[in-house]
């Protein structure tokens, strides 16, 4: 896109391809020559039907599998062949399932110590660090700061997702990936967690990609929206064009881009 204005690129995907079960009757092209450039501090919402390749894109960025072709550059470093746990040091990720992001048998405090990832393997968290956790948790406004010693398994789904959000952003990741992270929550809690997300992302100027099935929040949140279909990025909008878009337009774009009727109930209902 516009490279002359001095904006720094945080993430670059060049011609990324991934086929699952290659060479078998089950072969499925999940990512087909995807190229994407994400600038530092950009907040992109990603939409598309189920199976369009949205989560696969995240998996490729995180290193859940290695891509077949193409390369992935994160903040100037080629991470294409870097193992998942090493990329995870600089990538925060939230899943739809609130149970997936924290260890239920460990206390809130222990989960946070683990997520902060500071100090050596044999170090323990000091008083100061624990106080910092309490202060951060207080920002969630869920009373979690007074339950530091309680096991995470006792929290509700919404509280757990908020905690996971806190854990994922604790060490200022270069990239925050949100995979429908409010889809499993009730509407009220979802709204709260979403508000919290935008607040944390804005305050820390995080670079963020968010998959959502809610067309309205796809347009409301962030600064850019991309649409995926069959492993391609079929639509990419930002700036004034995006500001003037309505949900109806977006649905129309979807039909145009993919050349077929929209068959996803969840998207229509949104």
């Amino acid at each position, binding site marked *: 896109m516009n490279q002359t204005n001095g904006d720094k690129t945080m993430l670059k995907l060049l011609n990324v391809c991934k086929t699952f079960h290659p060479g078998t009757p089950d072969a499925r092209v999940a990512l087909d020559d995807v190229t994407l450039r994400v600038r530092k501090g950009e907040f992109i919402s990603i939409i598309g039907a189920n199976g369009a390749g949205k989560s696969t894109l995240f998996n490729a960025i995180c290193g859940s599998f290695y891509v077949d072709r193409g390369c992935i550059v994160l903040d100037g470093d080629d991470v294409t062949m870097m193992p998942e746990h*090493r990329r995870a040091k600089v990538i925060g990720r939230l899943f739809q399932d609130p149970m*997936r992001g924290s260890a239920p048998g*460990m206390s809130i405090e*222990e989960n946070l110590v683990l997520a902060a990832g500071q100090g050596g393997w044999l170090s*323990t968290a000091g008083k100061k660090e624990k106080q910092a956790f309490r202060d951060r948790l207080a920002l969630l406004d869920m009373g979690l700061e007074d339950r530091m010693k309680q096991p995470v398994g006792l929290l509700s789904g919404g509280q757990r997702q908020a905690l996971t959000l806190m854990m994922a952003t604790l060490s200022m990741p270069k990239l925050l990936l949100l995979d429908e992270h409010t889809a499993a929550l009730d509407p009220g809690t979802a709204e709260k967690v979403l508000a919290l997300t935008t607040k944390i992302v804005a305050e820390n100027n995080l670079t963020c990609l968010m998959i959502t099935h809610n067309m309205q929040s796809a347009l409301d949140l962030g600064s850019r929206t991309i649409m995926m279909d069959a492993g391609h990025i079929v639509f990419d909008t930002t700036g004034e064009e995006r500001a003037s878009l309505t949900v109806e337009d977006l649905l129309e774009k979807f039909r145009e881009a993919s050349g077929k009727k929209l068959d996803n109930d969840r998207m229509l209902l949104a």
Partner: protein
Amino acid sequence: MSLPMILGLGQTALELSLFNALTVLALFLSYSMLNVCDLSTDGCFTLGAAVGAVVAIVGHPWLSIPAAMGAGMLSGLVTATLQTRMGVNSLLAGIIVNTGLYSVNIWIMGGSSLLNMNKTSTVFSMLKDALKDTALGAQYSLIIGLIAVTAVIVFLSLFLRTRLGLAIRATGDNPDMVRSSSINPVFTTTVGLCISNSFTALSGCLLAQSQKSVDVNIGSGMVTVALASLLIGGVFMGRRSIPLRAVGAVIGAFVFRLVYTVALRFNLPAFMLKLISSVIVVIAISGPYLKGQLPLIKRQLAAKFGKAGTER
């Protein structure tokens, strides 16, 4: 039965349970924390006993302890490598290593299945000599057991608070989370199994030296006995802090020994020990499950025989 006799039995039970408690603490790390059922425990226990005995017989009683623990670590490394890097199912990895260790153990013992340490200078005989004329003269076994168990509990309590310890706990607690986090499960599983197996080997080393002999079958059934003790300990401590749960594991080992000692008193033959431990493990694991199923079973029975449930 006279009082001194009861006390004597109690002390023997306590001593033996302290040596076994080290294996229980090993399983506390691998089974309760890392959620890996390490079936190489039997072989590793014997490995520690064999290595410790051979090193002591050669004339290095002190060196026997680190040597046994080192051997245990190596065995843990093999088990961990099989399951984390070579695609072997974790239960199978334990069984394979256990089988292999049988040969290794006999090889270490110089081709014999029995080693005698009657005239060997061991940690126990040395402490016995040192305490000969003091009031604690008869308690040397107990002292060594207490020191070892305390050291392991203190180590575990401190270690499981470190970031590495927390990462090991998380690996067992939520593998999904760990897989997509900056924790490398290969690393945490390997470290956890190396440490736990070093405790198992220490356990075998001390038991063998206290009874002055090693039999190649000294460790057989150990994993079930230790698991039974661990689960009994869990009944006492439940979901409390880590140090308390570790102490609970030791109490569990003692209670198990006590039950066993009492059973022997009632003329139950010694070979029944393993059946008892198996039954205890079954009760401890399936008890809570069956308790949860009870209301459902009642309703099913009621439905089947046309009672209360169907009349509505």
